[in-house]
């Protein structure tokens, strides 16, 4: 072997890589201690009884009517806000990407979506109370035009009101997630389909929607998970009157309203399962759509 050319080895841990391992250690220690461990602790606790022994009892008691209703309610709120958020978000994203609108509109709307998707929580609740509460801006406006919302049965502090409020961050999130997928739709597909005799409707049915549905579905699942885990907005708007799972868990953490700490763990497990599965499905669908839309 020539003395001039040393072979370059690629070992896992070498003396020079040791520094790198030390460099990333704090991050992993942090993740372990403050992301993974607390979650695992809860997960384990969900399968334990008071004495620390293994039990499936907690999970069974998740089935009791009040808790089951809580989960159903959460699923309803999340599903509804995800459905409409996805629908309206998709329409807006389509308008932005393919609507032939003036050039300055897209960056403005995208920036706004970035802001609005982060504008959740307590201030959002206040904003909607100021808009659609009994003395709210729109309520009064509609009243003057002859439409009494509250007499008709509407109330901002209900399921409908909460879902409507959730849309304020769901729709922008949908726009942000789905726009890249729409960008990936090549104009040439539409043109090629035309040349082969397809009408616009046929193009959408046979090419565009099949290509887009993983992205749309994935994004909807993301919205679902997003709504399921949200609490601050609900707390400030409907509080304990709408007993979604995060509210229930909050009350349990605060004051052990369930008189059973391990049940709280089970609640958390249930939440995690649902958000975890939704996110997992989202990631799988996104990978699939990226393969087509590259």
């Amino acid at each position: 072997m020539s003395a001039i050319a040393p072979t370059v080895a690629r070992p896992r841990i070498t003396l020079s890589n040791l520094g790198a391992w030390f460099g990333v250690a704090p991050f992993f220690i942090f993740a372990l201690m403050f992301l993974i461990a607390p979650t695992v602790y809860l997960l384990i606790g969900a399968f334990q009884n008071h004495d620390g022994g293994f039990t499936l009892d907690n999970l069974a008691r998740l089935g009791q009517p009040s808790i089951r209703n809580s989960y159903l309610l959460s699923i309803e709120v999340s599903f509804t806000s995800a459905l409409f958020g996805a629908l309206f978000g998709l329409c807006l994203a389509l308008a932005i990407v393919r609507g032939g609108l003036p050039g300055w509109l897209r960056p403005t709307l995208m920036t706004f979506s970035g802001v609005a998707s982060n504008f959740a929580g307590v201030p959002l609740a206040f904003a909607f109370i100021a808009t659609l509460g009994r003395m709210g801006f729109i309520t009064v406006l509609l009243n003057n035009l002859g439409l009494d919302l509250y007499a008709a049965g509407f109330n901002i502090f209900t399921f409908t009101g909460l879902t409507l409020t959730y849309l304020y961050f769901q729709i922008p999130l949908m726009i942000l997630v789905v726009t890249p997928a729409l960008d990936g739709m090549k104009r040439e597909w539409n043109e090629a389909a035309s040349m082969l005799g397809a009408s616009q409707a046929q193009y959408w049915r046979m090419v565009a929607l099949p290509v887009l549905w993983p992205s749309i579905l994935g994004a909807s699942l993301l919205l679902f998970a997003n709504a399921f885990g949200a609490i601050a907005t609900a707390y400030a708007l409907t509080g304990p009157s709408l007993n979604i799972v995060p509210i229930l868990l909050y009350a349990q953490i605060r004051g052990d309203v369930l008189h059973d700490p391990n049940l709280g763990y089970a609640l958390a497990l249930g939440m995690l399962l649902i958000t975890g599965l939704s996110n997992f499905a989202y990631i799988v669908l996104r990978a699939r759509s990226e393969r087509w839309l590259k």
Partner: protein
Amino acid sequence: MTFLNLAGVQKSYGANAVVRNFDLDVTRGEFVTFLGPSGCGKTTTLRMIAGFETPSAGEIRIEGRDITGLRANKRNIGMVFQAYALFPNMTVADNVGFGLKVAGRAAPEIKSRVDEMLEMIKLPHLRDRYPYQLSGGQQQRVSLARALAPSPQILLLDEPLSALDARIRVSLREEIRALQRKLGITTIFVTHDQEEALSMSDRIVVMNDGAIEQIGAPFEIYNLPRTRFVASFIGTLNVLDAAVIDPKSGTIDIEGNKVFAARGLENARAGETRAVALRPEAVRIGPGGEGRNTLEGVIEDVVFLGSVVRVRMRLKQNALLIDTFNDSAAPPPSRGQSAQVNFSRNDLIVLADR
């Protein structure tokens, strides 16, 4: 018999004229190439034939029928795009059969036609693959099969080879031409690559800045270019300035050398300047004999390219490029050497513009 006719076709976006007064007659089965630099209007014209753009003026006819206002999906024209544009959610077989499926053909009919097309492009083993699993060249061939499956009356290709590797480009263009000949389908091919245009076409339409510069067979375009643009766009060309001495005998003066042009000076007057063009391969090194033109100068550079030897000789102001074949018996001239070169009167191209 004229199959495709474009008459007075124009396209403007506001005040910007992108295609100006385009007239063309294409016979059935002909392979015509639109050739020109980016922005010359060739793709826009193609898209007007396809139906994606509406002409601002003029008419487009197929077999006498006016299709100018007809929607793209009703024209029965096949198109191949630069970016392949295969539908990613469908297999190769489904892609190729798409046009037939849209037309409502029966499944067995579609299947046999798809098999036929895949055999034609020699990719039957890929019928169940998805586009993302194919190479660029394979995708383009599938794209071709897809365009031809519904038996269109015209085939349009929009720079189909530009996105491919050089080697695949050459083999694919031969394949496209062979297929076109076999099927006898009238074809319009758009490219900016003059080698593709020359090697594939029955006729070439050279375009520049929205207008047609010249229409002709490859031999004609190459050897008898009408304008400076055409001459310089196709192949390497020497363009020299000459002073007209006697238009009747075709005598002109190039940097103090008296030479004769066989044609092109009919409308010239003594004392005018004209641009003349000379292909590098038309020039031979050595003193000319009877009837040949001679130029004198000094050898500036010699590049040995293997089978071709490229020599640059300086006249007074201009430099002349000369391409000669390698001759093992006669070594090329050396730099700094004085030399004479000769060429035939027929090879001197007098250009229409100055």
